[in-house]
């Protein structure tokens, strides 16, 4: 009885619109003269938004590999566009990650942001709703609208609250991502002409010639590869991270990058499976370049945020690598890696934020011996550094472990290069940790540091618990994607030249 009632609620719409509405509310009610109220409204909004996503997990049927919680309403009948939402095992953890991260971001900006507080908080709340929209839309145009809309708040966040070189970074970020997206729109319109609808399910069933599939795939690839980002279209990310405020970096790393990875699974690969197979080698090579090349680049960075940005690209290389080995272990490892990277990169950027708020420098050389003055903080930082280097027992290990094990089966040498992250990942992360945290107190800035306040402690402690929790027991995450990944691989294995179902 109760169960039926819960199931009849439009949880997905709530998950999208509650944060958007609370963002509007913050804009209406808030302002710099009543900053405290603004923050509390934003926090409550983000908490409610997070709470409404929890039923998605508890009511999710793990045995069902297809879309659940579907909502279908006509939107623009003239073009056969629908307001169609739904989630499967891939999008569910990402939706939860998004709503969770928003709470963290609101907390992280609490007393740090004093200029345009309402706008700042609203931007993140609205962005959260939009991103959940991306993860849940099953209508191509609805998806596209969310996808592009997401750029606007991020553009504003970096452009208004960013660092000195923010204009260059925002323009680069905007143009880079927009360029790819336009090609994706072309692909959608082509598919619309073929099927007469923007329904994802229709796209899945549409037989397409290999030639057309390759063009469609390339169009999608341009959009998604930029977002992930894959080498060589990654250079916007370090610039954007460096200029973004801490909250912006957290959202960018924890969620925005996953939009690209998720979209590969949702659009590029199942719509053009033969092209995906056709490009397998190229994708694997690009992923490995990301893992090895970018790790080496990360090693020599002097700016902490740039280093973590490069480390993100390197870690996302495991995501694309996992996708294109077409095995369940690799695929689930890749999704696991996305989730785990959401926690770890968020935590790493928050750690840099903690230091930046105090010293106003991101340069590694500006620090040294931070552990002497901030022992509690250093404990967290070392934990997250270890997680970033993929230590077993932290969530960072799980995805990489699964992908590397699967890679041995795919091709030993792919595994060989992928496993090099064990060395390089540890090298760049721990070398930075050593230079920033260990040693004697390097200068008077470090000597004057004060340890974490309660708010910062709370944020990092929550992330630490999650990072260790999912490292010791990742089953709750992988469990929900089992059926979906099995269905996905079944679909991918069938050529799109005959009609298939997914």
């Amino acid at each position, binding site marked *: 009885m109760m169960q039926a009632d819960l199931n009849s609620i439009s949880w997905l719409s709530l998950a999208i619109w509650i944060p958007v509405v609370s963002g509007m509310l913050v804009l209406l009610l808030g302002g710099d003269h009543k900053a405290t109220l603004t923050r509390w409204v934003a926090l409550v909004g983000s908490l409610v938004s997070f709470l409404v996503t929890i039923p998605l997990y508890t009511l999710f049927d793990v045995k069902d590999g297809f879309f659940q919680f579907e909502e279908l309403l006509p939107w623009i009948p003239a073009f056969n566009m629908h307001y169609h939402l739904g989630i499967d095992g891939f999008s569910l953890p990402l939706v939860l990650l998004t709503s969770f991260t928003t709470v963290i971001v609101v907390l992280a900006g609490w007393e740090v942001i004093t200029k345009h507080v309402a706008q700042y908080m609203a931007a993140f709340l609205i962005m959260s709703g939009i991103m959940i929209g991306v993860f849940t839309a099953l209508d191509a145009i609805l998806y596209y609208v969310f996808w592009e809309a997401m750029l606007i708040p991020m553009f504003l966040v970096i452009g208004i609250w960013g660092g000195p070189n923010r204009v260059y970074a925002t323009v680069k970020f905007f143009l880079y991502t927009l360029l790819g997206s336009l090609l994706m729109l072309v692909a959608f319109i082509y598919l619309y002409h073929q099927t007469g609808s923007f329904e994802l399910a229709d796209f899945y069933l549409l037989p397409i010639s290999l030639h057309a599939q390759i063009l469609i795939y390339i169009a999608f690839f341009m959009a998604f590869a930029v977002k992930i980002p894959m080498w060589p279209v990654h250079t916007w990310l370090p610039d954007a991270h460096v200029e973004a405020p801490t909250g912006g970096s957290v959202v960018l790393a924890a969620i925005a990058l996953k939009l690209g990875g998720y979209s590969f699974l949702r659009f590029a690969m199942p719509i053009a499976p033969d092209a995906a197979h056709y490009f397998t080698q190229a994708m694997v090579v690009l992923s490995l370049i990301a893992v090895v090349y970018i790790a*080496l680049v990360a090693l*020599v960075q002097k700016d902490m945020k740039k280093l973590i940005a490069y480390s993100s690209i390197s870690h996302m290389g495991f995501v694309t690598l996992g996708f294109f080995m077409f095995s369940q272990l690799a695929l689930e490892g890749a999704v696991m890696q996305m989730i785990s990277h959401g926690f770890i990169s968020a935590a790493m950027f928050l750690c840099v934020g903690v230091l930046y708020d105090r010293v106003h420098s991101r340069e590694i050389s500006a620090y*040294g011996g931070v552990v002497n003055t901030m022992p509690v903080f250093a404990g967290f930082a070392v934990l997250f550094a270890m997680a970033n280097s993929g230590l077993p*027992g932290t969530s960072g290990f799980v995805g990489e*472990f*699964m992908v590397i*094990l699967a890679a041995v089966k795919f091709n030993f040498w792919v595994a060989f290069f992928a496993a090099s992250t064990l*060395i390089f990942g540890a090298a760049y992360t721990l070398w930075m940790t050593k230079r920033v945290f260990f040693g004697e107190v390097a200068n008077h800035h470090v000597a004057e540091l004060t340890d974490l306040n309660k708010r910062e402690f709370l944020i990092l402690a929550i992330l630490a618990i999650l990072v260790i929790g999912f490292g010791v*027991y990742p*089953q709750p995450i992988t469990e929900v994607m089992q059926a979906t990944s099995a269905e996905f691989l079944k679909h991918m294995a069938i050529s799109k030249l005959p009609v298939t179902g997914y």
Partner: protein
Amino acid sequence: MTIKQILMLIPLLPLMAAAVVGIFRNYLPRTLAHVLTIAGVAASCALSVYVFNQTLNGFSLNESVYTWLNSGDIHFEVGFLIDNLSAMMMVVVTFVSLMVHIYTIGYMEEDPGYSRFFSYISLFTFSMLMLVMSNNFMQLFFGWEAVGLVSYLLIGFWFTRPTAIYANLKAFLVNRVGDFGFLLGIGMVLYYFGSLDYATVFQRAPELANTQVNLLGNTSWSLMTVTCLLLFVGAMGKSAQVPLHVWLPDSMEGPTPISALIHAATMVTAGIFMVARMSPLYELSTTALSTVMVIGAITALFMGFLGIIQNDIKRVVAYSTLSQLGYMTVALGASAYSVAIFHLMTHAFFKALLFLGAGSVIMGMHHDQDIRNMGNLKKYLPITWITSLIGSLALIGTPFFAGFYSKDSIIEAVELSHIPGSGFAYFAVIVGVFVTAFYSFRLYFLVFHGKEKWRQPHQTQDAHLNATDNAKHDTQEDSHAHDDHTHDDAHHHGLGPNDDPHEPGWVVTLPLILLAIPSFIIGYIAIEPMLFGTFFNNVIFVNAESHPAMAHLAHHYHEMMHSPAGMAMHGLTSLPFALAASGVLLSWFFYMKRPDIPAAIKQRCNLIYQVLENKYGFDSFNEKFFANGSRYLGKLLWQFGDITLIDGAMVNGTARVMGKIAARVRHLQSGLIYHYAFAMIIGVFLFMTFFIKIN
């Protein structure tokens, strides 16, 4: 309590103690920090003894505790495999850990990081227990890396010292190189055996014995060889075999109790344990065994040489650890897994004893570690003296002492082995006996006998210069490092010329005594069951047909020795004993009788001395080639690849080209009516021409 609950408690008790003490260390009194952790590890030790007692009576268990994750048909589980091997390891780990916990109360007494230290060593105990109790490769890898983490934390325990934080990073990265191979090996196991569960893997191993894999082009390799070698790369990292040994000497930057626990008795033997555990796989590849043996032999001999020239008391013991790990590895290569484990056990006791003894000396000397400043300490530290003597005698393989039984069995097993490389290995282990005896008693004589050299003040200065010099090699990359080093913190002040060293309290001497007992008698007791009895039945698998060394050894023992006492009596007339005795005599002659001779040799053979001083150049090679190479490559890729090519040419290049085109095109929009009118007329003209042509 069911046995399974007991087994869960064994690792969890130290973990809980570590967590409580670690998280609340600023709120708990110091006493509670050590009471909690010692209670945890003591309970865990008692339970381990109970479990060991059960396994001796035939109990064994292979059960999963919980499912870590499922992916398709692949199940990753956390579980326990308890048999004589793991139960023995549990007892050794928890016992040595308990001793070190107690000892730490004295050693770290004045350290501000007291509680943190206890939390770390308890966390280590947990990790090590997870490693040895594992029933699958995933959990093994977890324990493997977790002990590496704690080792990282403990080497860098004094995190303000540049040398310490350099050493811990180095240790972690070198271990990661090993883990890189180890993980690929695990990948091979999962791919070909379809499971990570030991029992399943071992069961399927014989079917796959002749499987070939293609790795490079069309060359085909034996699956077993590839897998075993990859796994062994992991063992080389953790058990510090050449060329991945470089981290172990530097790890001496950590406090002495952990040098005893982690870098001598337990963690570094994880590789040996792993290979012994994997004996059903290694038995199927003679190539792998041969490689293992040669690498072990190189480590055993060449690391021993380095021990001769060290002047830091801990570094001498560290090099002897490297050398002894080489012995164990050689035994593995000879298919004498049980002998390797036997030596692992005896070594755990006497090497922990030697390290803790060295720690006691260091405390007595007020944290001066240079053996050239010591002498005649037997007068001031009698318990340390006697126990260290027992440890040294055990180390060099004196008959009746624990080390004799294990070491002599290794030498004999190698002699009886016919694997390619066993000739060299035999040479290495037999020369190694002499070298071991020489440097061990050089240390012993210089520390406990002779003149009280700290009373001559000039030496100290010299030693400090030397230490700084050593540090210089190690910290090339940190230009700021040795500037800080000169200030030298409280741990390095040394003894004044008029001070007398004092033996520390019972918390220090009790562990020494408790470790001295097994160092003396454990070999005598354990040799028969472990090597020639049924102790390792169904645990260690040896293919007696292709690798008969162990069978010959048993035969030899029953024919000629009859009993442990017989073996010791026989040992008195054997070549190894003669070599060990001459090593002791020579060191006595050199360092007690005629100290001018070693100095003269040092001058004459300057070249050799330099080679040894530079540790065969491994460190500088790694630093120059790998560390600087990666940094150079990273800079190149960044500056040229990212900044010049991608950003410069592609991204901003596109923007520039757009800008240029726009700048040209802009001229068309001049705003002058007659320009537009002219353009229109031209356009109309062109269109008309076009249409007329078409029609």
